[in-house]
């Protein structure tokens, strides 16, 4: 491997360079071949690479650090990139394909970065290319949403940069490795800033609206990309640097719980999935916070599975958007008749995200829950169990039910183009294969695994949880308690920057202009009065210009002279 040994991101950047200048067929080949070539090279290289080191401005950059943790994410990202390339083959828009290649390359580059400076560079490239994928839909809403997304992503980059510089100043090293938030009781500000940067990208509240705002506004294919990579890069970074950091346990539990309430009442099904993404990230972040070998294995495995099953659901919704033009639950229903394959793939994705036995979510989520229980975090465990039931409710049932079943909306359409179907088929197969043969995934995990997901107790417990959640849905739906889908906007933290602050600014502006008007009127009136007074004073009979009589002048002169005379004699 001498001539081909470059860090894996290089191939994607090269593809992005070439894509604008080639025809449709060559483009399809490049899109599909790049991730496959990258994957093959990655497997062959097995961590050996001589060209991964660079020195810039006196800083040693390491562009290819391959260990079990980065390699697992590397494999998953290549496979996902291959699936997504298939999914977007029909798209005849070079700029989106280019942006997607730069985006995937940056995600892979970030995964293999061994130092914080190259991580920062890829971090920012991720932000820019993903924001482009949102804006590429070219609607007014998408452009606004893309810019808001970019601002939040760049905010994360700014914190990462400041944290990195602080760290280099303090320790002299730019290595991207495990960090402590406290050393001898003293908070390490560089570590906290870097944690904040990772957290913002990972959708920690109150920054989570970057996800729920941008994912539903991007293109049918763009959302599939941006929902799969950015947050998982952040998860990888958290697992690398902050495994076992206690605040992450509570943050993760909060992230697993609160979005499911929003997901239940949300009408836009891609926004439901965005909230669901935050919920899944919650499980993963919680596992990272627990920090034991089992927990990290579970978190990493769940992150890898999440890339596949979450994007499978996003692809199914993308296919609906592509064919029908909307993914609002109020407008959909009964699509299973005309989109049977999409329905099937969506149901598989839903089963995987709900952690049904024999599907991929089960074998990874089980590890996290077991690890939480092993650490005696009983309340956190109950919260995650609640969230698990909730996932099934909003992602497992709601998404397929309202899109493909429910009442017949009268829409008659067809399954999406072949590329989309093959992409979803591959993702579905992966969900099933990992669920049935978990040891393939377990072998790639950072720590050696001694874990059996399929115990009779565990399978029964999970089936009870899921079936009785479904029973609750059936009962609530049939008794009319279930909230009907409605055309609506549900306000979240974004209310502060999309409604409150702009309105406050507008109000401040109107107050200021009113004060300005008032001051203007007052100044004009008073000025006019002053000018009148002065004018009157200087006219013929004004008090400044009236005529003096000569006798009074003589009297004044005499008094003055007399006064001076007397003064001289004194």
């Amino acid at each position, binding site marked *: 491997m001498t001539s081909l040994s470059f860090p894996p991101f290089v191939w994607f950047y090269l593809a992005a360079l070439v894509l604008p200048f080639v025809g449709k067929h060559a483009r399809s080949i490049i899109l599909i071949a790049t991730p496959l070539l990258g994957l093959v090279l990655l497997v062959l290289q097995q961590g050996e690479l001589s060209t991964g080191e660079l020195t810039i401005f006196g800083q040693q950059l390491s562009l290819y650090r391959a260990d079990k943790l980065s390699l697992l994410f590397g494999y998953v990202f290549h496979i996902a990139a291959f699936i997504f390339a298939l999914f977007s083959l029909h798209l005849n828009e070079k700029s989106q394909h280019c942006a997607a290649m730069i985006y995937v390359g940056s995600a892979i580059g970030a995964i293999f970065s061994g130092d914080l400076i190259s991580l920062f560079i890829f971090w920012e490239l991720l932000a820019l290319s993903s924001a482009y994928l949102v804006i590429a839909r070219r609607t007014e809403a998408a452009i606004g949403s893309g810019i808001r997304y970019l601002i939040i992503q760049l905010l994360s980059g700014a914190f990462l940069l400041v944290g990195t510089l602080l760290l280099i100043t303090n320790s002299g090293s730019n290595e991207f490795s495990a960090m402590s938030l406290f050393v001898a009781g003293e908070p390490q500000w560089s570590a906290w800033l870097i944690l904040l940067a990772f957290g913002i990208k990972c959708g920690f509240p109150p920054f989570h609206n970057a996800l729920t705002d941008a994912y539903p506004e991007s293109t049918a294919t763009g959302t599939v990309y941006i929902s799969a990579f950015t947050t998982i890069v952040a998860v990888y970074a958290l697992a690398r640097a902050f495994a076992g950091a206690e605040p992450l346990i509570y943050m993760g539990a909060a992230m697993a719980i609160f979005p499911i309430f*929003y997901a239940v009442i949300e009408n836009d099904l891609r926004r439901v999935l965005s909230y669901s993404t935050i919920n899944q990230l919650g499980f993963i972040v919680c596992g990272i916070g627990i920090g034991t070998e089992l927990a990290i294995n579970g978190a990493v495995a769940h992150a890898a599975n999440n890339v596949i099953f979450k994007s499978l659901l996003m692809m199914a919704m993308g296919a609906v958007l592509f064919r029908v033009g909307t993914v609002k639950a109020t407008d959909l229903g009964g699509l299973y008749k005309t989109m049977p394959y999409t329905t099937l793939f969506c149901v598989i994705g839903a089963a995987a995200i709900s952690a049904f036995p024999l599907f991929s979510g089960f074998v990874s989520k089980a590890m996290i829950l077991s690890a939480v229980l092993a650490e005696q975090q009983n309340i956190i465990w109950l919260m995650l169990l609640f969230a698990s039931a909730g996932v099934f409710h909003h992602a497992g049932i709601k998404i397929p039910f309202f899109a493909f079943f429910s009442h017949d909306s009268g829409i008659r359409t067809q399954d999406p183009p072949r590329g989309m179907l093959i992409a979803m088929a591959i993702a579905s197969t992966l969900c099933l294969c990992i669920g049935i043969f978990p040891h393939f995934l377990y072998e790639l995990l950072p720590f050696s695994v001694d874990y059996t997901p399929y115990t*009779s107790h565990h399978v029964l417990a999970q089936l*009870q949880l899921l*079936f009785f959640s479904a029973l*609750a849905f059936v009962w609530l739906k049939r008794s009319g308690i279930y909230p009907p889908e409605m055309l609506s906007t549900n306000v979240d933290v974004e209310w502060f920057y999309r409604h409150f602050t702009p309105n406050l600014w507008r109000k401040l502006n109107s107050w200021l202009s009113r004060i300005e008007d008032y001051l203007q009127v007052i100044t004009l009136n008073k000025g006019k009065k002053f000018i009148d007074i002065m004018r009157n004073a200087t006219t013929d009979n004004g008090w400044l210009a009236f005529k003096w009589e000569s006798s009074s002048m003589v009297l004044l002169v005499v008094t003055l002279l007399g006064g001076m005379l007397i003064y001289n004699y004194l």
Partner: protein
Amino acid sequence: MKNLNHTDPPGLKKWLRLFYLICALLLLADFVPVFHHANDKGPSWWGFYGIYGFTACVLLVVTAKLLRKLVMRSEDYYDEP
């Protein structure tokens, strides 16, 4: 209880009956000692997961319904000046 049966697709009743049967069997399976080992972590008393799942989902939906009162606005809320 509102009767929404008039919109039910044909055959739904049959599927629902099968579904209820599975639920009942899952609860009954908890009595079978094969499903419990001494080294199981987590609560293993009868029906815990089923009851917890059902209660969780009902709570979730009822709370979400209340949440609507707090957060729901018109669809073009953010577009209004």
